[in-house]
């Protein structure tokens, strides 16, 4: 399973690689990282239908996670990638907007990795 992680914090890459080191080692999960919405879109444009799951931060400079979500849901229909939104602000408005735009799940920072792993197993 290929997961695209979108976050402006660069250390998120190391964090995910460490948290999922067993899964990466076993080849269960393959991570790709993008540091902005724009970067994520250009990756998706080149590697069509590669990413099964997109984990995106909402608060990013430039293109926001919600805008990215909107564009992904518009452009990629078949098969639609699962998009999970992550935000530091667990507020109702962001949640509502994300759901309206078609987000498949909504996580709040700090990410509970055990819960995330459970969710990934179900998605898988």
């Amino acid at each position, binding site marked *: 399973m290929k997961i695209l992680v979108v976050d402006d*914090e660069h250390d998120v890459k*190391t*964090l995910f690689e460490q948290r999922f080191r067993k899964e990466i080692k076993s080849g269960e999960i393959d991570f790709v990282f993008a540091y902005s919405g724009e970067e994520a879109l250009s990756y998706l444009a080149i590697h069509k239908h590669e990413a099964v799951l997109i984990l995106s931060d909402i608060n990013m*400079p430039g293109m926001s996670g919600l805008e990215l979500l909107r564009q992904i849901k518009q452009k990629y229909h078949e098969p639609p990638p699962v998009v999970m939104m992550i935000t*530091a602000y667990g507020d109702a408005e962001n949640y509502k907007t994300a759901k309206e735009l078609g987000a498949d799940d909504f996580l709040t920072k700090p990410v509970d990795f055990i819960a995330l792993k459970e969710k990934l197993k179900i998605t898988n």
Partner: protein
Amino acid sequence: MILQPVLALLILRYYRKCFKKEDIPRNWKNIYWGSTAFAILLFLLFMMIRESRTIVSWLGHIFLLALIYKGYNSPKLKNARSALNAFLPVTLIYFIIDIITAIDKSFYKTWENYFDVAGIFAFIWMIAMLIISNKQMKAIEKERLKTEEAERVNKITQELKAGLEIQVSERTAELTAQKEALEQTLSELKATQAQLIQSEKMASLGELTAGIAHEIQNPLNFVNNFSEINTELISEMKAALDAGNINEAITLAMDIDDNEKKIIYHGKRADAIVKGMLQHSRSSSGVKEPTNINALCDEYLRLAYHGLRAKDKNFNATMKTDFDNSIGNIKIIPQDIGRVVLNLLTNAFYAVDEKKKNTKGSYEPTVSISTKRIPIPGKINEAKVEITVTDNGNGIPNEIKNKIFQPFFTTKPTGQGTGLGLSMSYDIITKGHGGQLKVESKEGEGSQFIIILKI
């Protein structure tokens, strides 16, 4: 003789003149009227009685002499002395004649002619002296009137002076009251100003808090996550060592080490943010200290951005930075410059957000901050540093460009801006640091604020 009462009346007239009409002392009045009445009584007695006139005559002599003695003796009757000098010979001559007549009438008869001549001379003397005396009296009277007039004028002057003094003291009191009122107003204004500055600080701190919360949350998440991972890795490493798998243990140790570095890095990041916040809310130390201006700008850029993000979920902007690493540390008051940078950035974000709200087409709100070291030609040890905050918002209309640094000028809706941000920034840069704060703006295209500091 009938002469004595007449002379007495005349003398009394002169005595009377020695006093002003209004202020004759009571005892003098009594003496005057008593003497007058006595003189008239003597005169009438003399006219009515034909026999034993001698007693009346002697009474007249004694009365007259007493009167004259009183005149010479009393300082209050000084002015009548020249008149007394006129009457004295006549009085004495007739007194002597009467004495001589009483002692030896034949002697008097023998020398009668001489006595008569002496009497006539005494009369002539009296008349001449009286004329002189009258003149003198008139002169004295004139002088007296003059003195009185002078006194009157003096009195009026005194009254006017007193009046003026009252007026002056009233005016002085009024002015003092006004001065005190003004001083009171001034100190109230100063207190208000201090309060406004404080509220501006608090307002900008309010803008920061959400950003700070966000900015601290991220590094803390990393610290927590990497610590948890390290705990796992350490137990894995132990297991690897137990299994004798040295290579794997070494790999794990290296990972642990990397994570540890990340923990330290993010811990310090959170630490710097908290310190920055404390510094911002603290009143300025006023002390210049070597500061990394690039780090300061970067920090406030993030704080300002996340602060606005937290307030308005729809807010978004591209941030660009271009820092000149050759600047190194410069001596500034970090809290104050931080406040200025924050203010300029908040304004920039506000400007792009306003434009975004009113633009329907594609518009990418962008705020950038850059620093640049500019050498001063001919000077090796001196240079300038330019800190530029640029936005692509709506720009500042020309007609308000010269007002933006004025205190209380704001384009924000009532209650949203204090109008003190830029004026305080201007003071901090120009007065506090001897630098310049410039603005360049094109309507519709955006604004650029440039801080120029000498180092």
